[in-house]
């Protein structure tokens, strides 16, 4: 019994040391932003992210098709000339607006593409945080076959 207790003490000490020594990195310790992903509307998500009312910016390109035949797989992306620290893809009419967000460390290009699901025709937003200021670009994607509810 005593041995076990000692082991537990030993391991918790090791984990503590790992955390303080930076072996467990901030990215791993960083929590998935539950509140942001649970936000139903654009405004909910803007609020959680602290984006307020982002201004439209011509420096951001929302990469998305005009028409998506299959809403289950819509290729989307963000490209910008701004020095982005954080970027997010939002779909206005999805059950939860936020589809994905990305953190861009120094040395990484402010560019990302991925594939998302869309329930119906909707505006898709590329939200970019640069110099602690949020900006946005919008594009409407027409969906002929919805990707939610299957």
């Amino acid at each position, binding site marked *: 019994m005593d041995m076990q207790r000692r082991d537990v003490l030993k391991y918790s000490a090791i984990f503590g040391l790992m955390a303080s020594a930076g072996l467990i990195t901030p990215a791993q310790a960083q929590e998935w932003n539950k509140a942001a992903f649970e936000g139903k509307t654009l405004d909910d998500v803007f609020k959680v992210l602290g984006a307020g009312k982002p201004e439209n910016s011509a420096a951001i390109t929302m990469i998305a098709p005009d028409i998506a035949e299959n809403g289950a797989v819509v290729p989307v992306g963000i490209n910008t000339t701004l020095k982005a620290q954080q970027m997010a893809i939002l779909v206005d009419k999805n059950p939860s607006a936020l589809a994905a967000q990305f953190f861009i460390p120094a040395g*990484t290009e402010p560019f990302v593409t991925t594939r998302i699901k869309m329930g119906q025709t909707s505006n898709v937003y590329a939200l970019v945080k640069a110099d602690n200021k949020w900006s946005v670009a919008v594009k409407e994607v027409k969906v002929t076959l919805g990707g939610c509810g299957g």
Partner: protein
Amino acid sequence: MSDPMRVRATESGGVVDVKILMKHDMETGQRKDASGKAIPAWFISTVTAKVGAKDVFVGEFGPAVSKDPFLNFKYKGAKGDKVTVTWVDNKGGKRTDEATVS
């Protein structure tokens, strides 16, 4: 056990282009099974790409990301870099794969 992901990294002009294809159902939690019961959400929540100890890209996904998620990003790097990609899902599942930049 989760299936391996495909990671491809190619360098051109000092910029490494990383393409990742993960294998995951990405269940939204919105769908119902044949008996009308909701299928619980099950999706990749965090993706981290590292070169050595440095994060080069961190993504957070919601259930609206497509099944078998695809991700493409670019960072300033060189041939021979080892890119390590790890995803974690909302049920605590985890998978790490590595690719060498060519």
